[in-house]
């Protein structure tokens, strides 16, 4: 007995997927079919925007999504004018039997006690231009004292700490903070 095999022609033509990514489900109208191992357009290779301080949010309108492991660049703190670039808190008058203590600091390599009420701070990361950044300070020994900014090189700044009567004093603590472009 002879068996004849007659191929059955495929009845359905497969086409490229054309699914649309959206924010809600919706029925399509195409009467074509796709294969189960088709590739869907879900991602793109667009570099996400760099995040800056104060940047506004946006819902976006792109019709593709970012990959789960995508990453945004962020604005460097050195470029943000609103961020403090250096600060310190020092017990400038050690008191009896105690030490000259820097309690905490940021971007400060050293603090020098140059004399009564006179301090020089050396920055770890320099500022961009001398005398274009703001450096202020204050202290307290039961009263608020002010700090006079004497001038600043790119890598250091000298400040005088004074009482409300203008006399130089080593406050305890003495705190400094600096803003500006680096």
């Amino acid at each position: 007995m002879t068996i004849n095999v007659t191929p059955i022609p495929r009845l359905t033509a497969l086409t490229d997927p054309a699914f649309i990514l959206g924010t809600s489900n919706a029925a399509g109208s195409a009467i074509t079919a796709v294969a189960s191992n088709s590739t869907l357009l879900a991602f793109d290779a667009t570099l996400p925007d760099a995040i800056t301080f104060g940047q506004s949010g946006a819902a976006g309108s792109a019709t593709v999504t970012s990959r789960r492991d995508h990453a945004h660049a962020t604005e460097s703190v050195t470029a943000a004018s609103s961020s403090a670039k250096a600060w310190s808190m020092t017990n400038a008058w050690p008191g009896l039997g105690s030490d000259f203590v820097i309690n905490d600091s940021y971007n400060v390599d050293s603090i020098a006690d140059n004399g009564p009420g006179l301090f020089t701070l050396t920055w770890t990361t320099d500022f961009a231009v001398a005398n274009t950044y703001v450096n202020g300070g204050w202290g307290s020994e039961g009263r608020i004292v002010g700090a006079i900014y004497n001038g600043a090189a790119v890598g250091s700044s000298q400040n005088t700490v004074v009482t409300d009567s203008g006399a130089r004093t080593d406050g305890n603590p003495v705190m400094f903070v600096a803003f500006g472009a680096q």
Partner: protein
Amino acid sequence: MAKLQVIPNSDGGVSIIKIVGDDPGGLKLTKTLFEHSRTTDMDTHFEPAVHTLEAIAAGLPGHRALSLSAEIDDADVRLLDRYFRDAWEWSD
């Protein structure tokens, strides 16, 4: 025991320097000396390869020649007078 560095001021006084944190390579101290040696140069950024302790001690353009006077312990400044520098008497 923490160390403090002593350098001469241009007015004849001295400055007491506290280095923040560790300084195994001495870079913070070298930069501090570089900054304290400034006289007219406010703009030059510290370059470790160029601004060495030897170069700072010899004097750089716009800077005074500067080197350490002494290294002392914290305990050495545990004095009664807050303005202890003015009461110091030096001995070798």
